[in-house]
């Protein structure tokens, strides 16, 4: 019988819309390119909602002290529904210590994929956010971005564009090099996959340092695509991936410290 490592008890709040500056309390909130908040209360008050998910499970090793981030209450009739969905999603993520190397706590989404409701809810949360935003392109980063990107693309009427490691795409490609902890890697996209002026969302399972997402943004922008937002299931905020995205908004469901 398959068992997950038991999650620590978590206080799950609301869905998190992460945008530049919100999580660093010492900074003033910067104005960002951001999708309009559909919550009528927020619109009337003129205040940007700042919601939080406090999620991710830890297992195996002594969990570092968790640092909850500031939260504003969202006055919406949908908050409970979102609450339940996100807490379930968060509880299905398995943490594998010391993978791929000692000291790393790997956030494993394969266990999320084994829970059809959690997987459906994950996709639904992204689809609800993007369906009325005229998104033409969902770009998914190999390989785990291929799991989440296509269902989102299909549901919102967008094309799916795979962003791949070198020499995987058979046709003519454009390439973008990006730095790793040691050395560099390259990401490729097919020439002609996207058109100038198209609006895109970039999808991956997780953002860590932001290197791969940033490479994907650059590839798309080089050919005239407007990258509206990056979307990930999980964020590791301590690795400051959001900073690496520059002025690009980031939407995540679960933040794991």
């Amino acid at each position, binding site marked *: *019988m*398959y*068992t997950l490592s038991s999650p620590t008890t978590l206080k799950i709040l609301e869905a998190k819309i992460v945008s530049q500056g919100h999580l660093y309390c010492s900074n003033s909130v910067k104005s960002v390119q951001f999708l309009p908040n559909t919550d009528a209360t927020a619109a009337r008050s003129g205040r940007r909602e700042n919601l939080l998910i406090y999620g991710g499970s830890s297992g195996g090793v002594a969990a570092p002290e968790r640092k909850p981030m500031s939260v504003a209450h969202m006055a919406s009739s949908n908050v409970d529904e979102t609450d339940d969905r996100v807490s379930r999603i968060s509880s299905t993520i*398995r943490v*594998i210590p010391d*993978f*791929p190397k000692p000291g790393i706590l*790997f956030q*494993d989404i*394969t266990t999320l*994929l*084994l*829970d*059809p409701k959690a*997987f*459906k809810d994950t*996709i639904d949360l992204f689809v609800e956010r993007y369906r009325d935003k005229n998104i033409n392109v969902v770009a998914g980063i*190999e*390989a*785990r971005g*291929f*799991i*989440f990107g*296509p*269902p989102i*693309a*299909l549901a919102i*009427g*967008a*094309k*799916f*564009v*795979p962003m*791949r490691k070198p*020499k*995987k*795409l*058979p*046709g003519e490609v454009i390439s973008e090099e990006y730095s790793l902890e040691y050395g560099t890697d390259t990401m490729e996209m*097919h020439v002609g*996959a996207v058109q100038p002026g198209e609006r895109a969302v970039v999808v991956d399972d997780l953002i860590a340092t932001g290197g791969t997402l940033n490479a994907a943004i650059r590839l798309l922008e080089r050919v005239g695509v407007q990258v509206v937002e990056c979307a990930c299931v999980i964020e590791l905020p301590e690795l400051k991936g959001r900073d690496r995205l520059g002025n690009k908004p980031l939407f995540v469901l679960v933040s794991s410290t």
Partner: protein
Amino acid sequence: MMLAAENGLRGDPRLKGISEAIRVVPNFPKPGIMFQDITALVSNHKVFKDTVDLFVDRYRDMGISVVAGVEARGFIFAPSIALGIGAKFIPLRKPGKLPGEVISEAYELEYGNDCLEMHVGAVEQGDRALVIDDLVATGGTLSAAISLLERVGAEVIECACVIGLPEVEGRRRLDGKPLYILVGPRQYNSII
């Protein structure tokens, strides 16, 4: 090998659109290979949706509990099928990618061997499984996938691919499991 057109979908206009959305890239990854590229297919929303719908329509009432997708292009199709029929999605991956405890199955390439891995505990005894990939050529990868699933007690009901190459030998190569294919290979037209 069951071609969809011979299996109740003859004349289905969706199949024509799917076939025409495949791009042939000659001499990739090496001279003499006419590569069947599905990126143009998934870039066409209607055709991509039709592709997934065809599989979902076939499998939704077959009590399938697991959809296994082969890295990486199988990941583009399998999760949507899993979501459409309410099944678990299981990624079958190259070595070293899955973080937890795995079981491995080696299979032959034209030159040398490769290996497919699956997480221990992902599949339970009695699970009814599909294996999905974008294309089947020799069937070696699908055969390894079938082995992995059967080793942990799942029953592989069928393997399904968008494209099937003529060299697939059918049942012998796929351990007696049915193979369902939407379309044959697109021919390369150098005039285009």
